[in-house]
């Protein structure tokens, strides 16, 4: 008797472990705690998201229309304040018809800054190029030659000033920081203590006290009758401040260079400076590039403090733009959000870059 083929009942399909549904099940409803969390967040979003969207988008006024803005007050945002004031917020008190100059100068400087971050541009001519670009930058900004009208540094402001203070601050701080970091590791007690005192003194006080010093004390430090430019004084203050932090960063890199490298250099008969220049610093600086970028982000954010000593960088220019105009002053919060977005865009981009560099460095280590 031939056996009749009897198929067994089909088994249920295995639970899917890939795809959207599986992802949601695992990540949103993994266990009861996760489910409750998802539910609470969803509830909060359902209540508040429509209100926020109403304020920011649906009831908002986008044109520079003061009457409409006043009418929408309390129910909708007035983004018109940005279209009305953005030139003043971004360029500060720089003369309106000359604002192509900071635009061009800053673009030039940022292009060089970005290029300096790329390995393929790391050549000897980068240093002289910086000097040339800085000369062009100051010629463009200050004017007074080549048919450009003169603009006093008091009138520089806005985003170009923020970028300039951060860039020049870190650029000038860099050589000081290298010397101080090396000095802190020196075996000469007097030099080591001088460097330690400098670093700990600066790192122990807030930037604002250094800026107060730049603003109130630096004029007393110079010979009688001289009065250095306020921008220059603040730049010196920021440089001294950044140098102390940068020195600690670089010292971390110096410590990470294996001692065998230095001993090998000594065996080859290299002098102290040859060892540092050819062996130690190239390795140490490559390690700390991400931390240097992070220091740059810190200085970039800290430049907002110079508004307290009356230099009108982005934050200061925004306050100036809105406080000087009673009509638009009620819509300050929208202007705040606008410059928040600018700061965030810059800092976030730089922190992504720093992470990327970190990955590159660790990739080269884990060949």
């Amino acid at each position, binding site marked *: 008797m031939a056996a009749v083929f009897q198929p067994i009942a089909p088994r249920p399909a295995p639970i899917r472990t890939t795809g959207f549904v599986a992802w949601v099940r695992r990540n949103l409803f993994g266990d009861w705690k*996760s489910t409750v969390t998802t539910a609470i967040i969803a509830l909060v979003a359902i209540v508040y998201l429509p209100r926020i969207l109403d304020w920011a988008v649906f009831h908002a006024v986008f044109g520079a229309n003061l009457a409409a803005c006043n009418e929408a007050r309390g129910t909708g945002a007035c983004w018109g304040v940005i279209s009305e004031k953005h030139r003043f917020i971004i360029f500060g008190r720089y003369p309106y018809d000359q604002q192509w100059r900071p635009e061009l100068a800053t673009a030039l400087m940022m292009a060089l800054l970005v290029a300096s971050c790329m390995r393929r541009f790391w050549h000897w001519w980068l240093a002289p190029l910086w000097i040339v670009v800085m000369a062009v930058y100051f010629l463009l900004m200050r004017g007074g030659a080549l048919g450009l009208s003169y603009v006093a540094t008091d009138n520089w402001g806005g985003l170009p000033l923020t970028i300039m203070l951060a860039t020049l601050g870190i650029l000038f701080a860099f050589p000081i920081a290298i010397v101080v970091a090396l000095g802190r590791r020196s075996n000469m007690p007097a030099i080591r203590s001088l460097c330690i005192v400098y670093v*700990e003194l600066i790192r122990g006080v807030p930037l604002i*006290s250094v800026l107060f010093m730049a603003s109130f004390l630096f004029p007393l*430090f110079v010979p009688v009758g001289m009065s250095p430019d306020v921008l220059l004084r603040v730049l010196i203050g920021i440089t001294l401040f950044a140098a102390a932090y940068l020195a600690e960063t670089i010292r971390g890199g110096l410590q990470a260079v294996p001692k065998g490298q*230095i001993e090998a250099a000594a065996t080859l008969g290299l002098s102290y400076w040859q060892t540092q220049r050819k062996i130690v610093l190239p390795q140490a600086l490559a390690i700390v590039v991400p931390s240097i970028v992070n220091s740059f982000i810190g200085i970039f954010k800290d430049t907002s403090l110079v*508004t307290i000593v009356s230099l009108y960088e982005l934050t200061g220019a925004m306050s100036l733009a809105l406080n000087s105009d009673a009509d638009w002053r009620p819509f300050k919060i929208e202007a705040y959000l606008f410059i928040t977005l600018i700061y965030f865009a810059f800092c976030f981009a730089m922190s992504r870059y720093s992470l990327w560099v970190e990955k590159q460095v660790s990739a080269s280590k884990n060949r």
Partner: protein
Amino acid sequence: MADQPVARVNRGPSPKWSWRSQAFRGVVYQVLAVAVIGFALWYLAHNTVLNMKARGIQSGFEFLTQPAGFDIGESLIPYDALDPFWKAFLVGVLNTLRVAIVGIVAATILGTLLGVGRFSRNAILRGICYAYVEVFRNVPVLLQLLMWYLLFTDILPPISEPFTLGGLAYLSKGGFSFPVPVWQMGQKLALAGAVLGIVGAVIYRRWAMRDFEKTGRPHSLFWNPVKIIVGMAFVGWLAGGAPMEWSVPVPTQFATEGGASVTPEFLSVLLGLVLYTSAFIAEVVRAGIASVARGQNEAAASLGLAPGQTMRLVTLPQALRVIIPPITSQYLNLTKNSSLAVAIGFPDVVSIANTSLSQTGRAVECIAIIMLVYLTTSLSTAAFMNWYNRRSAIKER
């Protein structure tokens, strides 16, 4: 710290006072460096003295004993405009410390929650924690302070019609008012009881550790001490007659009376600093937890520890060692950033110094006081945290 000489090559006996002797060169370099720095400092001081003479600026700290002549919005100690400058500075220092201490506690709690939240099983929660960290740490803290201050002074309702939380606490342009217990005998005894309880808890912990090492019986090293402290405080409160009286704020037309209150300035400084710093602390905590080797978790699981126990007994103690040094610098950053209070008019030490500076013109002295206050705070915090760090560091051989 004690770094080895970089390239000490034994060149054989070299004449002591020769340029070829490394020791001699070292002495010359150091003398030169000290001389240059000394001359630079002397030159700056010399110029300062000349400038002050030319501009008729007086110097010296004797102004500290003269009446300050300005009022201070909020103060922990009684103060009025006739009090001397040193008292005004003291008020400023106390305000700075108040913001810094409350801020550090709050930022630590919020930052730890956010940092642990990055490891949540829930994707939305992970995303929210990530977004929070990125947004708050990439925007200047000064801007955040200004924004909070604007919110508090512009958006909140006027004093006469405040927001209320169940009729107990009120939030308005005048600040935040909340009920406090009336300070009586019972509270004093409760405080004394709590102090006694802390002493008792320390003794209990010592005994418990010794007993555990001797017999292997585990004792709760967290909940039992907490029970001891709370219990002793409760006994003290009962002994004082168990006072139940609360001072509840009552809103009136011009002010909210009764209870305790904090000004919008204090709130905006606190909120701005806490939200900013907690983003950094969250990153520190996340990195600390991520630094604990995965094998540790697996080993704990194979010993049969529950996830909560693993976190408490295995992961966190090891993460703490990685977390403490960077979190110390975040605490110091918060303290230093509290100086930004000057931008919104909270009377911290910088703001008081700024006012005194514009009133007396003694720039050198006022700035020296600011720097001294922050240096003392920074160095003592650093010393304390170094001590704690040494205690919790891995004891290796």
